[in-house]
């Protein structure tokens, strides 16, 4: 059982509620500026949140009932990987976990982009792996017809995850030798070609990027359905589940992941985070009122379209909920703030200290700096090429 709760904040646009931008004031016009993102992310960093995820898609936004772009909500976005890189120099301890899709993007670019984020952030990169299932996205690329079965997209994603992992391992830690005597910059025996040829993708060479601080940044995947859960167990280090969605209980979702791990023959128990949408108010009634007014502005209750539970709640209620989740065996939570910055600020400024007081987290000041794998409770990434001849302690 984790000894303290992992807390991740999920960032997107003005928040997860379709009407959230109406509460953002002038900031609604600045959602594509570095200033907006830096302000939001630095607050999470300074106040001790473990990581932020950043959503992405190739679409401009959701569709309305008529099948056209729904401009009553936020449309238009920035590339999440690049946003994560841009905010990295301004942050010190926060994990940065952009969504990078694998359906249309080249695995080589996925691998090198995330390695670069890991270098820039000195070991704080993560990867929210995602597929792009819609025909709309396929039409924007024009390379494939779109409408592939989910099982096909997940199979392809498994291959991409594998080849990315191989590229991440392709340079040994000590490949750069700078040996002036022989004139050699690298020891080429310590760089390994990916040599991956699958049914969907193939990559022959090594990464262009030297091994990054974490080696392999942690992979995070959303398991809101059974097929996604099976994929997450195959491809991810951290699994997000959505309690309350589709009438499923937190305990069952956790059991499902553990069962799938067993089926897959994996002896690793992945950290599982409960992924919850939250609006945080000063009282339950105030939170409920705020959500109701957002729902009215949007013309429909957000809970009817969200793929997870939507909670209008308070900090004390959240602390109790998170404590209960921990008792079930959850490693922590990813919270999707319905309003950014209102609810993201409440998470950083109010929820974090309340969790410390409740004994669910260490105080920021007393927490050692660490890479993201360590913060998430994942073992260091040992390269698949790690030499078997490395010195081993032999017990006397």
């Amino acid at each position, binding site marked *: 059982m984790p000894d303290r709760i992992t807390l991740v904040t999920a960032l997107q646009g003005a928040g997860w509620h379709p009407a959230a931008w109406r509460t953002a004031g002038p900031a609604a016009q600045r959602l594509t500026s570095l200033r907006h993102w830096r302000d939001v992310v630095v607050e999470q960093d300074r106040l001790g949140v473990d990581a932020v995820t950043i959503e992405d898609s*190739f679409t401009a936004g959701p569709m309305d009932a008529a099948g056209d772009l729904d401009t009553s909500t936020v449309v238009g*976005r920035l590339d999440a*990987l690049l946003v994560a890189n841009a905010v990295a120099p301004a942050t010190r301890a926060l994990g940065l976990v952009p969504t990078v899709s694998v359906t249309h993007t*080249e695995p080589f670019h996925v691998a090198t982009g995330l390695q670069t984020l890991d270098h820039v952030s000195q070991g704080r990169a993560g990867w929210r792996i995602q597929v792009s299932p819609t025909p709309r996205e396929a*039409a924007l690329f024009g390379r494939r017809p779109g409408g592939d079965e989910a099982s096909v997209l997940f199979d392809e994603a498994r291959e991409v995850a594998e080849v990315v992992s191989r590229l991440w391992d392709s340079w040994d830690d000590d490949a750069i030798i700078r040996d*002036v005597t022989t*004139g050699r*910059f690298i020891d080429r025996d310590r760089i390994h070609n990916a040599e991956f040829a699958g049914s969907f993708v193939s990559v022959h060479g090594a990464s262009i990027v030297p091994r990054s601080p974490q080696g392999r940044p942690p992979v995070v995947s959303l398991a809101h359905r059974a097929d996604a859960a099976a994929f997450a167990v195959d491809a991810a280090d951290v699994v997000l589940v959505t309690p309350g969605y589709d009438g499923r209980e937190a305990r069952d979702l956790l059991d499902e992941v553990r069962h799938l791990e067993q089926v897959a023959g994996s002896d690793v128990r992945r950290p599982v985070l409960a992924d919850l949408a939250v609006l945080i108010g000063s009282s339950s009634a105030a939170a409920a009122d705020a959500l109701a007014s957002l729902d009215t502005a949007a013309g429909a209750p957000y809970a009817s379209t969200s793929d997870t539970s939507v909670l209008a709640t308070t900090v004390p209620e959240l602390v109790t909920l998170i404590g209960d989740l921990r008792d079930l065996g959850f490693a922590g939570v990813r919270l999707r703030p319905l309003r950014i910055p209102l609810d993201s600020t409440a998470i950083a400024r109010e929820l974090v200290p309340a969790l410390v007081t409740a004994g669910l987290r260490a105080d920021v000041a007393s927490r050692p700096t660490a890479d993201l794998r360590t913060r998430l409770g994942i073992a260091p990434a040992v390269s698949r090429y790690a030499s078997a001849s490395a010195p081993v302690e032999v017990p006397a």
Partner: protein
Amino acid sequence: MSAKRQVHLAAHFPGVNNTTIWSDDRAESQIAFSSFEHFARNAERGLFDYLFLAEGLRLREQKGRIHDLDVVGRPNTLAVLAALAGVTEHIGLVGTLQTTFNEPLELAKQLATLDHLTDGRAGWNVVTSSDAFHGANFRRGGFLDHADRYTRAAEFIELSRELWDSWESDAVVASAVFADRSRIRDVDHHGPQFDVTGTFPVPRSPQGHPVVVQAGDSDEGRDLAAAHAEVIFSLHTEFEDAKSYYDDITARLERVGRSKDELHILPASTFVLGDTAADAAERARAIQRAQVSPATAIAFLEQVWNRDLSGYDVDGPLPDVEPDLEGAAITRGRARHTRDVPALVRSWRDRAEAEHLSIRELVIAVSTRGGFVGTPSHIAAEIDRYVQERATDGFVVVPHTNPYGLDEFVDTVVPLLQERGVYRESYTEGATLRETLGLPGTIRDRRGVLA
């Protein structure tokens, strides 16, 4: 107001060829972000127009193995430029990005993102390739016929601009609705290379279009640049050569209805500084010896001879064996140097014999590019002369070491250019890269493509 033409300077992050001296005592990591940050901040201190970064898509190989004598390994171009957006305020950020192993929707999205994150300081050096060697790292392999490289590049640029123009700058209203749907146009592009349909995901960026840079030197490359580019990254640094290139491009621009004022030509060059001319020449010699280590000298000849020459003494005469003209190229991942190998080898042998040059001395003589060598005042005067006499519009400065190789230029040459009245004293607050370059509006605006 000065009538003098103004000098434009770009700073080339030290690359992965032997121009970069990794054996220098002060050479630092080629991958640590601190190196990029120092380099960018220093270029910004020197009021450079932009920082330039190349791209790697496969590690170079020689004799079937990774080439190990030069700097190896670099970051993903877009990702590190985005990180630099976070630590710079004024300088343009220009990256080399392939049109062959990228798709327009995705690259246009990333470049528009970079332009937002930098408040309008993004640029794109468009390159093409078609070889199976690089293709082996990508989904489609070496799919593109060599002859189609520029066709694809041209359609890629046009389509990117169509995507960037599809959102009007006032589309996000954030009043009754978030965006005005009538100000977002769906793209429906069908061409020989691309079929792209739908709504572009990024609102119009501050520059509208990131600045397009092009480096092609072939006839087709020059035409592509004349039709589509705003800056040419050229290789012509010798004065007369630079001048005839400049005239050639000016004529090509006129043929496509553009004026030279719409495009800058910035050749890449190295600069070796010294307190005296003799001091600078001595430093240049030391730099050349560091660039051409014994192993590098052999590897260089192997690229031309196309065979293993590891048994030869670099301090001895040129190899007596003949080059292998039939075998598959032993060097992969970089352009081959010459088409007529026998003639080249003959000329090198003649030169080595006439000047009593060893292998290493010959390689130094033929491989290290001229560049500028001299005192800061000599170099400032030369840069000024090239620009006033329309041989170039400035230079891309290529330092020898990472990350401090630019510092001395900034400390000594930049103030002298300012004294001459040909270089800015400060950035214009809030200027986009296109404004810093002194270029007019985007190509499509000027053509009246937008209503």
